[in-house]
């Protein structure tokens, strides 16, 4: 990582000239950089600069520069808005459910797959469980409607079993969170196992042999060999997850929400879209987005700090 600084520091003498000759030597590399760097400037850093409209009253006619500054007006408006408490709790509850049910799911599945000794069976299972990851949220929402609506597979079975009325899985707000977490688990669990299985494949098989000779049963082996092997992977992914605790995934929530479940389904991401894009309150919704982004960045750096504190390498 520090190759550049060492080389530069190591070369005494006329520094600007040295730098110029170094650039000239690698001129093609710098030319190759240009399109990609432009992309980051235009599509990543320009929007970051555009965040300033959260502190302005953005007006399309006046434009970015001439719109008047208003300080923290939009923020105080947002925090005093009754929507704020609802959005925060909806966002956190969905994230929390996804964390406690969704996060361990691929770990458990990887551990289960690791116990499968028949190679062909293991490979077949893996091929199948990776598929949903590659399917769009639109399709997944469509499949959910097909299966769970009042004439869907589940309700048809229940009627056949003698239930009088159908269950409104899609429109009753009581079922919304369960549907969201269920979808996430169905879509991402299989794919999530890849990284844990990679960590597990690095375990030296001699460790297991030694454990067996020492009389350890399968559960002791799991506890003393397998789990420690994936510990740092778990911590790394947990940090990444904690940093994104306010991101519920716009696509999924947006596609599954409707006017009947709005009270539990509206989260920061969908709120920004509705208020900003469809209602045109650009400054206000940028302030909401910025609030979310700043909390996210604080969370990710604190989680990383914590990970280093407990002796893991962290990600940053």
């Amino acid at each position: 990582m520090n190759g550049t600084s060492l080389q530069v520091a190591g070369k005494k003498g006329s520094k600007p000239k040295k730098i110029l000759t170094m650039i000239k030597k690698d001129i093609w590399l710098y030319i190759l950089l240009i399109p990609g760097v432009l992309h980051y400037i235009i599509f990543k850093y320009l929007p970051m600069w555009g965040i300033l409209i959260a502190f302005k009253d953005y007006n399309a006619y006046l434009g970015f520069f001439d719109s008047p500054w208003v300080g923290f007006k939009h923020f105080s408006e947002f925090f005093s808005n009754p929507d704020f408490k609802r959005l925060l709790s909806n966002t956190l509850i969905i994230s929390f459910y996804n964390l406690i049910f969704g996060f361990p799911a691929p770990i458990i599945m990887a551990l289960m797959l690791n116990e499968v000794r028949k190679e062909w069976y293991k490979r077949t299972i893996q091929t199948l469980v990776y598929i949903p990851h590659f399917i769009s949220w639109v399709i997944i929402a469509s499949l959910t409607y097909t299966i769970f609506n009042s004439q869907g597979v589940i309700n048809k079975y229940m009627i056949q079993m003698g239930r009088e009325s159908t269950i409104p899985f899609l429109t009753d707000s009581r079922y919304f969170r369960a549907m969201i977490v269920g979808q996430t688990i169905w879509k991402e669990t299989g794919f999530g196992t890849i990284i844990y299985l990679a960590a597990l494949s690095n375990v030296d098989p001699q460790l297991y042999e030694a454990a067996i000779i020492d009389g350890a049963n399968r559960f002791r082996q799991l506890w003393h060999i397998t789990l420690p092997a994936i510990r740092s992977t778990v911590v790394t992914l947990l940090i990444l997850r904690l940093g994104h605790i306010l991101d519920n995934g716009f696509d999924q929530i947006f596609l599954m929400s409707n006017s009947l479940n709005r009270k539990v389904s509206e989260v920061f991401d969908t709120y920004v879209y509705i208020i900003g894009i469809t209602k045109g309150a650009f400054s206000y919704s940028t302030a909401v987005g910025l609030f979310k982004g700043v909390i996210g960045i604080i969370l990710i750096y604190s989680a990383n700090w914590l990970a280093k504190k407990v002796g893991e390498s962290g990600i940053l």
Partner: protein
Amino acid sequence: MKYKKSLLSRIFDVFNYTFLGLFACTAILPFLYVLACSFSSEKEILERPFYIIPRNVQLAAYKYIFSSPTLPRAFMISVFVTITGAATAMFLTLTLAYPLSKKYLLGRKVLLSLISFTLVFGGGMIPTFLVIKDLGMLNKFWALILPGAISTWNLLVVKNFFQELPQELEDSARVDGCSSLGTFIRIVLPLSMPVIATFTLFYAVGYWNDYRSSLLYITDNKKWPLQLVLRQIVLMAAGNIDGATFDAAYTQPPLEASKNAVIVFGTVPILVVYPFLQKHFVKGIMIGAIKG
């Protein structure tokens, strides 16, 4: 290594194999059901709860969706955006990743940290929307292609891959008089074919599945790609989405079989490339798992 299995161990195996088998089935059964429904009569869809072989196969649903220009047009737009997008994204990713993989490159460290920063913080939906708008890209296909053309995660994985390539190969090419551009094109790229294949397919899947960009940037429904049309047909017909302009072509909710046929359209291209994809992506993820 053979050892006698305890009873508990056997019970665990039975449970383990069964559970994994069932989970794997749930991953594929909804698709088979939708496929079956798309070839079924309305009556059968209403009466039978779940099946994967229709009693009498019919093509009415497919005839219906081909009778209007909307779906074939959306399909072609998606194909166009996917191909152009994947090519653009690969070009940008490769040209940026290669210089960044050279540890001696001046300014590399600064660039890398600026790029990595975008993983934890971004401008968000509205400022990005305003940038796209000010660039005059609303209702242009470029708005579907350019903003997401580099995935930082993919970029860092490709960079790490380039870093792992034996430096001696490039050194000898340079001794033979190859410029760094020539080395990149003639030596490095041919060695990177597996990685190029993996990420081209990853990007292609991303473009194919993307509907958010078109939701944000494309208001002209004649320019909608397949995923957005699909959302309109399936989810709006279910009366479940509000706040978007309803395409006049779909005010008559389509029949169940047609909805299923549309879902098939959105899925089949992915399932067709999947076998090619699967060979590579596990390795791709594993390269990415190694920190560098």
